[in-house]
Every structure is written in C-alpha cells, then in structure tokens.
C-alpha cells in the first residue's frame, strides 16, 4: 500500500511541473501561437530561479527567507518571460515561422540553462552540481509536517506551495478564458484574428501579453523542478526538457481546456512514474524495456486523443483555428 501512496505523491509533485508548462502553453496557444519553445522556457525559468537563490545564499551567511523566495520566484518569471518576448518579437512583429522560432527557443533556452548552471558551479568552486539548499526548503515546506495528519495528510498536504498554486492558476485561467471579456477577445484572436481586428481588438497587444505571460508560467515549471522536486539541486540531465515536451503534449491531450490540464498532468505524471512503483505494487520485476514502454504511454495517449478528437469532429475540441499562422492585416 505504501508503494501505491508513494506513486501518488510522486505523480502529484511531478504533475505540478507539467501543469505549469501546460497552462502557460495553453494561454499562448489560445492566442493563436504555437510556442514549441516550452522546454527551453522551462529550463530558463528553472535556471534563473536557481541562480537567484544560489547566488543570494552564497552572498550572505543569514539569508532572509522572504527575499530568497521573492528573488527566486521573480527571477524565474522574468527570465522566461524574456524568452517569450524574443519569441513574440520574431513571430508577432516579424511574422517569422512559429515552429522554427519555437524550436530555436528550445535549443537556446536549454543551452543557456545548462551553460549558466555549470558556470555558477565553477564560479563558486562547487564540486559536482551546485545546490541552493535553503531555498529548496522553502519550496518543499508543507503543512503536513506541522499538522501530522497521517495518510490523508501525506496524500493531500505534503507538497510545497507551488502544487496548490498550479491548481489555483488552472481554475483562474478557466474563469479568465470562459467568463471574462478579455478571455473572449483572446480566444477570438486565436480563432480568427481578422475578425478580432475588425471588432476593434488590438491583436498584437493580446498576442504579446498572452505569449509572454504564458512563457512566464512555463518558467514556474522549471522553478518547481529545481526546488520542489530537486530540493534545490541544479540538475544537468535532460529531464527538465523532457517534461517541457510532455507539457506541450498535454495541451493537446487537454483539448485546450485548463481544467482538463489539472487531472491530465497528474495522469501523465502517474504514467511516467509507473515503472518505478509497478514492480513493488504487483511484486514483479521489470526489465529496462518495460520501463521504456511504460514511460512512452503519455505520448501514445496524446496521439490517441488527437485521433479521437479529429474523428469526432467536435468543433469545441479542435485547436484554435489560426494556431500557428501569422496574422497579416488585409492590405492591397
């Protein structure tokens, strides 16, 4: 039984990482921009948050908890928003191809993050990977350690604040998109920018805002990875990037609905971690090949969802009509 609870806990921690990325990308795609730079933005956000926490921790003997939190959180938001700004300038203003720009941003972001992390380690003479331990404790602090509610506490309250923030953010985004004037305007731009333009909506402004805010939210995904999942360890493996791709797939899986992103991200994470626990739960021994196959499931499920959504031809489950297309105002 404890292995099963372990799986749930891992899934929720990991799912939060995916959820931020998917929510950010949902907002961007609703405005008609397919940003394939999510993995890059995740790494950029993770690196910036880590760097802020690490440098501040190193600069003083008694770091202020409030400032640590503020610096790392803001750094992640701002740095990944800047990545989004580069993407926007290229795709909105210069009308560059969105796929190419997004993929370039992924290479760029991952490169910047990995290089920066290694540089920081070297600068401060840390052997192996650098660690911002104090900041890590801030992001892993949870109510359960105070209240001690046993198993329900373990399952529901044992996570850092980012887990709850992600769920709140998803609900807020749902309300924004479906109940507010600005949400309606944004969706109209993603569907039919010419119509939105004729209705007097500032198309470029909305695209810039939705893409940059979306990018900032993607940055929180990296922050979550480094501090909540990694307890402040800067990691140099490719996991962060892989989760970024999983987030892009989840947007499709969720059929562009933030509320579906909540359960979808937990499901994806559950499937992702299944290999680690399935042996214990069912008392079988897994070979490497089964691990790989199990980890593949989220992507297979995404393809199935795409096929089903296309076959059913339900208009509400389709991607925004002008997703991936640059908008040129009609001129003769």
């Amino acid at each position, binding site marked *: 039984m404890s292995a099963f609870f372990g799986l749930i806990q891992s899934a929720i921690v990991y799912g939060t990482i995916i959820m931020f990325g998917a929510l950010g990308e949902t907002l961007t795609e609703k405005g008609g921009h397919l940003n394939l730079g999510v993995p890059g933005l995740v790494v950029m956000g993770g690196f910036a948050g880590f760097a802020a926490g690490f440098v501040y921790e190193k600069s003083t003997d008694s770091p202020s908890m409030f400032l640590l939190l503020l610096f790392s959180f803001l750094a992640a938001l701002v740095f990944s928003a800047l990545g989004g700004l580069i993407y926007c300038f290229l795709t909105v203003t210069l009308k560059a191809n969105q796929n190419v720009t997004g993929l370039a941003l992924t290479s760029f972001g991952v490169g910047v993050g990995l290089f920066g992390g290694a540089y920081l380690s070297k600068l401060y003479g840390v052997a192996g990977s650098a660690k911002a331990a104090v900041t890590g404790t801030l992001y892993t602090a949870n109510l359960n350690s105070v209240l001690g509610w046993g198993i329900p506490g373990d399952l529901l309250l044992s996570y850092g604040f980012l887990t709850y923030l992600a769920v709140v953010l998803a609900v807020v985004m749902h309300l924004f998109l479906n109940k507010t004037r600005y949400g*309606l305007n944004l969706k109209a731009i993603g569907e039919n920018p010419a119509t939105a333009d004729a*209705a*007097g909506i500032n198309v470029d402004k909305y695209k810039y805002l939705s893409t940059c805010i979306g990018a900032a939210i993607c940055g929180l995904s990296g922050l979550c990875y480094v501090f909540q999942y990694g307890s402040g360890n800067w990691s140099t493996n490719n996991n962060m990037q892989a989760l970024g791709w999983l987030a892009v797939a989840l947007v499709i899986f969720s059929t562009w609905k933030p509320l579906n992103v909540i359960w979808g991200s937990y499901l994806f994470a559950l499937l992702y971690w299944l290999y680690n626990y399935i042996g214990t739960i069912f008392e079988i021994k897994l070979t490497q090949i089964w691990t790989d196959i199990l980890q593949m499931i989220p992507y297979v499920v995404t393809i199935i969802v795409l096929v089903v959504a296309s076959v059913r031809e339900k208009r509400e489950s389709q991607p925004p009509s002008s997703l991936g297309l640059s908008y040129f105002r009609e001129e*003769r």
Partner: protein
Amino acid sequence: MDKTAAVSLHDITKRFGSTVANDHVSMEIRKGEILSLLGENGSGKTTLMNMLSGIYFPDEGEIRIGGEPVTIRSPHDAFACGIGMIHQHFKLVDVFTAVENVVLGLDGPLKLDLKKAAAQIEEICARYGFKVDPWQKVYDMSVSQKQTLEIIKVLYRGARILILDEPTAVLTPQETDRLFAIIRAMRDDGKSIVIITHKLNEVLAVSDRVAILRRGAYLGCIETKDATEQILTEMMVGQKVELNIRRTEPRDLKKRLSVRGLTVVGPEGLDALEDVSFDAYGGEILGIAGISGSGQKQLLESIAGLQKVEPGSSIVYTAPEDEQERQLIGRTPLEIRELGVLLSFVPEDRLGMGLVGSMGMTGNMLLKTYGVGHQLFVKEEGAKKLAEEIMEQLAVVTPGINTPVRRLSGGNVQKVLVGREIAAKPAVLMTAYAVRGLDINTSYTIYNLLCEQKEKGTAVIYVGEDLDVLLALCDRILVLCGGRCNGILDARTATKEEIGLRMTKLQETDHE
C-alpha cells in the same frame, strides 16, 4: 423622408501606389434612406465605404457626421461615430455563439454578462423581425443567418449608418426578399443604409437613391423613382473608348470545345454555374464577360479539370490532329494531358496557380515538361532554351532566367506565364484577367499574342473585366450573370450598354 445628411464626404481621395481608387469623391448619405452605391468592378465602391468603416484612411478629404468633421482611423472609431459595415466575407468566429460574437471586442466590465447581452439581442430581433437564437453556434448557421447576425452585431453597437457590401451575393431569392424587408424596417426606424451592389434590379427594388461611381470618380446621384435600367447602365459603363487592337476576321473555324449543361455548386451551397452551354472554335477569341464572381473561375477550372461538376455536365474536346471527340468531365488535369488534349490555362492567380514564385524562369518552364522522357533526372536544357526564347521574344525584363519570378514586375510575370502556355502550342488557350494590373504597353503585347494565337487556329477563351477591351479584342462574347449564360453576342455589333445590362440582369426572352 428627412433630407438632412447623416454622413457627408468631401473631396475624398484614396490611392494605392500609383492607382487612384477614389478620386475627389463628394457625396452624402441622408438620414432614413436606403442608398445604393452602384459601379462596375474596381470602380472604388468598397474602398470608399471602407474609409467610413475605418479599414482604410483617406489620403485627402474630409468626412463629416451630422455636420461635424470626424477622424476615423479604426473600426473602433467607426463604431463610435455610429457607422457599422457588413463585409462581403463575414467576420465571425465559428466556434462562438451568436451572443459571444456580438459582444466581441466591446469595452465593459471584466466579467461577461452574456445573459443580459442575449436579452438585448432578442429585443433587437423583436424590433426588426430577425430570427436568430443568441445561443446558437455560428458553425451551425446558414449563410443568411450569419448575415443577420452581422447586422445584429452592428445594431448592438448602436450603429445609425449601416453599410452592406454586396449583401445579396450569397443569398437565395427568398433570402434576398427577407433581407430587403429587414432593410426597409431599419430605414423606417430612422437608420441610413448603404448597399454596395451592381445588380440593377435590386437597386431599383429597394433603394431610395442611387449613387454611381465609375473608375473611382463620383458621377452623381439620382432618385430611384427617376431611374431606369438603361440610364443606370449608361452611367455605370460610360462612353465607348476606341482601342487600337488589330482584330482579323475569324476564318477556318473548327469546333474545339463543346460545353453542355455545365453546373457547378459553389462553396456556399448555391449554384456557381447553372446549366451553361456554349461552343468554342479554333480561329476565334471567345470573350467571357460578367461581374466578378459570376462563375468565371468555376467555368475555366471545370474545363481544366480542377473543379468538381454536377452530373449531367458535359465538356467535349475535339482534337485538331484527328478530329476525335474526348469527354473531359471526370478527369484530372494529368489525365486530361495524357489524353493528348492541348489545353493551356493562364489563371487569374498568376503566382499561386500559374507559376512558382520562388523558382526562376527555367524552373517554371520545367513545370510543364518535367514528365517528358520518363527519366530519373530532369533535363534542363529544353526548359532553359525555352526560357531564353521567351525572354527575348516577349522582352521580359529580368536580371536572368534563374531569378525567382516573384521578384519580377506584374507585367513580366504575366509575360513568362503566357509565353510558357503559348509555347505548348495549345489547341485551346484559356486566360483569366490576362491584363489585370498591367500597363498599357504590356497589355497590348498580350492582346497581340492572343490575336496571333487565334490566327494560328487556336480557340482562345478570354475572361475579362474591361468591356471596351472585350468588344475590341473578341469575336463573340458570352455574358455570365449569376452563374448563368445570359446570351452570346457578336462582339462586332454588340454595345457596351447591352453587355452591361446582361451582366446585371437575366434576360427573360432569349435565355436558353
């Protein structure tokens, strides 16, 4: 009727590059009237109205609303002035409901109150007799419902002046009647309505006054009760202009193409072509006249094998070498070519359908001949030679035969395309708007090339928009009106008015 002006335009001029779309237009739209804005294709009707709706900004002149000068820079400004335009292509979001489309882009509190908006929409519907469900999705709506929704959209924004751009183009006759009833109801409510159109019968049926534009200039305004179709047509098409095209008498006519009962259903579900029948002969130029969108595109594409046609249609091609008849219906362009049909097509969209913009002249020549020889590697020599010949004979101005054709001027692009199509020694040569956007000299080059082809015995089909050119260049002119063949006239005896009238109104008597 109240005779005060709701909107007045003073000396409005709009240029696009070197072409003048509107030339010092001064006119007024009165309160509580239905004004028809009448003119041929490209006479500047839509451009003029787009300046009222904030799509374009005039280069010169002044717009006054209720006597006060205003500046309209965006659709937003136009709404603020009480002007709403219903475009020919609807501006609606398909996955939204009617009410969501109506409130789109409006200022107001953060939270959307769709229920309140829906109630207001129902109020508007009750007032003017519309039938629209505010909660219906746009993708479930018929064309006429979408149009009604567009009208509701501008009324909801408080428009007092409504501009409708060719509102009946996509409607059935019954729907048109219903639209006219709505328009009259709005007029009686004190709104000013402008209808952009070129259908004379509708002008006479619905409007109070008619304003006429010709080649960007305002010719004047007459009361509809004083107007007749003849007067309007004469004002619209103007005096005959003599052109110096060397037209020989057709001789040695041989039937090349025989079209019978051609029917095509357009994208809106209406007939784009209805029971069109005609013959095209080698040794003559057959002109095709009509308001734009009367089925010209579908007609040419049906012959080229690019268009799905309805059962019962027949297009028979007679080969010059053996006088054998071949049915073209149901075959793809490749199959048609493999049948040995010598068909050349100069489409309207030169860089879209005709040429590949990013390839040079040589590459574009290859498009027609790449299959010759069935070898693994493409042979470039022939294409290169042809490109050089065309460049020399037609005086194409280009840095080199490998310069992407997209970088050439419009006239040179057309020379490349026409040159290639003629080089294939066609038995039937179809051209769509072959001189659109070209200067006088290049236009004459094209006319002469077409005349030369005719003398060589090719059946030339020339779809055009300038009536003077059609009359001077062609031997016979087929007039299309709303997808129907509205008579085939002898170009040597026909008058401009006659064609203009047939373009805008179906003839009851001699229609086959």
